């Protein structure tokens, strides 16, 4: 088993850490950096519970090896709110009840933030298509879609 020294910026904080070659980014975030907001669901890229941004692009952290993020910037759900002030995306999910058990929510926060960065005014079809990589077993998705639409409205007025 070999270790790699990597330097990575997670939520704006630079970390110089020793990671095992075989660890996933998900394992490093949760077990090493104790950022447990990112969840493990299927661990094979289907459910999106582990979605984080790597250099601004949404990615399944279960399918990224930890040493791959050497020199990259990672954003997890913990990195969205600014000193306890929720982002418009987070506020919209709260106000529209876009969650029930909450397990999928960190992934939806990142996926929605990335979606609205790329496309500030998505149609309902685009929202459903672009968030298809995030599974929710509670809400039936309608409230999530409404939350995303509301988040888009809030961001465009901001």
């Amino acid at each position, binding site marked *: 088993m070999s270790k790699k020294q990597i330097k990575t910026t997670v939520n704006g904080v630079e970390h110089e850490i020793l990671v095992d*070659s*075989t660890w996933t980014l998900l394992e490093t975030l949760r077990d090493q950096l104790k950022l447990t907001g990112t969840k493990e669901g299927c661990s094979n*890229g289907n459910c999106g519970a582990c*979605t984080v941004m790597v250099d601004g692009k*949404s990615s*399944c952290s279960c399918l990224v*090896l930890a040493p791959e993020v050497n020199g990259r910037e990672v954003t997890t759900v913990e990195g969205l709110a600014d000193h306890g002030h929720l982002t418009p995306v987070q506020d919209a999910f709260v106000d529209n009840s876009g969650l029930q058990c909450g397990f999928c929510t960190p992934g939806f926060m990142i996926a929605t933030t990335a979606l609205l960065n790329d496309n500030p005014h998505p149609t309902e079809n685009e929202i459903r298509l672009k968030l298809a990589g995030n599974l929710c077993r509670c809400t039936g998705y309608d409230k999530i879609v409404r939350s995303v639409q509301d988040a888009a409205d809030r961001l465009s007025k901001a």
Partner: protein
Amino acid sequence: MPNFDYEAPTSLSSALELLARPGENRPLAGGTDVIDQLKSNRRNADLVVDLKRIPELLNIDSDDSGLTVGSAVSCTEVHNFTAEIGGFAALTESSELVGSVHIQNRASVGGNICNAAPSADTIPSLLIHEAVAHTASASGGREIPLIDFFAGPGQTVLEKGEILKELVLPAPSANTASAYLRFIPRNEMDIAVAGVGSLIEVDPSTNVVTKARIALASVAPTPVRAYVAEEFLEGTKIDADAIEKTADLAVGSAVPITDVRGSAEYRKELIRVLTKRTLTICLERLA
């Protein structure tokens, strides 16, 4: 997960040197197939060589002669780039069908090829656009027409120490259109039960097809071309009747299995329907 070492070389030559070493050395691009296969012990590795720090493998470029796609370029980048330049509609469409957005941001089109799944969505599009796989190894490289790249499910003709370097697609003529469609039981995030890519070049003064390329996914151990259908369509004046006949002939190139995703009979019927639809879309795009 097997115990493997990880290296991220910054030059092609050092990557090739690492891959030529003894042992099971596995190239990594997006990793969306490889990492899952390693985790579930479906593939082994002593060394994983990350290709994403090698500039020429991350390059996507086009000029009058055609399109060059480095093997580590992500599906998202291929989609955005080809949507911008136009001319490769089937590839633009299929690169947006590989898993979710989060997968497309990481997965490379080159990896989709090297993973060699018969159901891979980008492969029929590349086949109809006559992609040539340029490989690299410590002893040189090869230029392999993509149709000759596949040896079976999950198997390519790449040898130890040899990697896919880039895909080169010739520029299509102005009177050319292409389209890719797959069938899945839901709207997104699924593996093709069957897929068809079609490309036609049509003489606008006569409506005679001067080039036809039809490629099929998920209906054979490797992606296949529907040669008999292509030969029939070339030299034929294109209309609804010609499209019907071509679609019937394409079914003959499908040798599917029955599995959890669909029966052999169902897949053959899908090939007929999807061939008809993709050719109809091509015709609409030419109008």
